[in-house]
């Protein structure tokens, strides 16, 4: 099992080793976001709203972690569809679990790389120290990563079932989550009914928790536990949806035609 997972990870490492544009793509949007939000917050700081700076930059960095995590899962399998390699993978004696573990490993590697680059840039350009959150970083990082995987399994299921036609959804679905996750503002800003929706997302607890840590230096373990529990449910739901889509693909004989869809 380990060897097959290694092979699948290796396939993606080879891809990135060779392509400067792909490596650039990992970092380009996060860095651009950081620059835009960084300068906006710099301006707000000068307007005497200093706390806003750390909230916005922190929100931006953590949001990108969630987004990259979802993308890593989805793009790994979509890539195989686009280059017509999906059948080669599915006729190899590899299980779906092994494919998923491999894509998660690739996702962790990419997320870590992005976090390090953004952390260094945020510190250098805006004196924002992501490590100031201390050990709280670990659960925040893990919850966002896992939620990204859950969403990623859902969008991967769509990619597998609908091929190219689902591309817009692959990119767009994370942005359906963003307004309700209270990334750049506290949940209390949202209308009451949307607050209920917001608290159904594990990511909301992380962004709320981040603001509490940065403001009061305190980590609320209870809300972390809720987020972890929810993540468990979302992961089970994401995996079930992916399994169902794969079943439909096999039923419809779509594997050899996905790149045409």
């Amino acid at each position, binding site marked *: 099992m380990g060897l097959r997972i290694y092979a699948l990870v290796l*396939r993606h490492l*080879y891809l990135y080793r060779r392509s400067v544009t792909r490596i650039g793509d990992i970092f380009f949007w996060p860095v651009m976001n950081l620059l835009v939000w960084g300068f906006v917050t710099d301006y707000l700081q000068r307007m005497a709203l200093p706390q806003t700076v750390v909230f916005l930059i922190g929100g931006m960095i953590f949001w990108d972690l969630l987004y990259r995590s979802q993308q890593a899962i989805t793009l790994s399998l979509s890539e195989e569809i686009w*280059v017509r390699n999906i059948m080669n993978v599915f006729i*190899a*004696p590899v299980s779906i679990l092994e494919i998923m573990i491999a894509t998660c490993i690739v996702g962790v590697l990419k997320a870590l790389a992005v976090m390090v680059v953004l952390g260094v840039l945020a510190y250098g350009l805006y004196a924002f120290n992501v490590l100031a959150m201390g050990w709280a970083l670990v659960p925040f990082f893990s919850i966002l990563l896992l939620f990204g995987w859950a969403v990623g399994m859902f969008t991967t299921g769509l990619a597998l079932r609908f091929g190219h036609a689902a591309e817009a959804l692959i990119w767009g679905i994370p942005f359906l989550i963003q307004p309700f996750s209270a990334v750049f503002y506290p949940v209390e800003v949202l209308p009451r009914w949307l607050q209920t929706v917001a608290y159904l997302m594990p990511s909301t607890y992380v962004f709320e928790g981040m603001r509490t840590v940065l403001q009061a230096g305190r980590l609320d373990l209870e809300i972390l536990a809720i987020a972890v529990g929810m993540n468990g449910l979302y992961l089970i739901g994401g995996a079930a949806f992916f399994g169902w889509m794969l079943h439909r693909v096999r*039923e419809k004989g779509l594997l*050899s035609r996905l790149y045409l869809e």
Partner: protein
Amino acid sequence: MADEWVIEVDGLTKRFGNVTAVEDLSFSIRRGEVFGLLGPNGAGKTTTIQLMLGLTTPTAGTIRVFGLDLQRHRRAILRRVNLAATYVSLPTNLTVWENLNVFARLYGIRKPRAKIEELMELLDLAHLAWRVTGTLSSGQITRLNLCKALLNDPEVLFLDEPTASLDPEVAARVRDILRQIQQTRGITMVFTSHNMREVELMCDRVLFLARGRAVAQGTPAEIQIRARARSLEDAFIVIARDGRLHDVAEVTEAD
């Protein structure tokens, strides 16, 4: 001998909504045999291959490979089979070596380097090891796909139109390689092609499909005789036109 049959297909049916792609198909393939699946476009050849690889689930019927039920033992079976097809590609942005290395590990090859070197030598790819796959010619890509398909020393090799889109010279080279591999390793091959001359050269037995149904089965020579055709290609045309096997003379008269 019970283990003489490596593939046993019984009553295989596949429906996609209202469309019946494969209907009540039954056939068996012997160990070491080159078995041709023939028929016009849309006859159900590729669907049948995908069903035999477990990529598509059947509506009805059973498939046994190496005496094992495909539905229950798919992964165990996949370790012992492989596929090369024109509609499947290896990632074009990886080098030849990288692609083969990934798949050698996916198949759990014990000494991947030695195996890859042996196969690259056999398929005349050694000098292309560090070339990016996307820069290879059609013939080279076909050989690379074959190389990948041989990594796990398959007992059954599915070849879906392996020489399509190749020029005659390169196609002849690929056929030579396939024959050499088949003879030296005794691999069972399931072969589809629209080139009837190629089928005559390659296949021990063929199964003609038309509209998802088995129309005729036998050696290429037997099929030709039954169709009273001058060639296998004429027999193919008769079946493609009428969806069944009957006299060429009858067809000529009707024309």
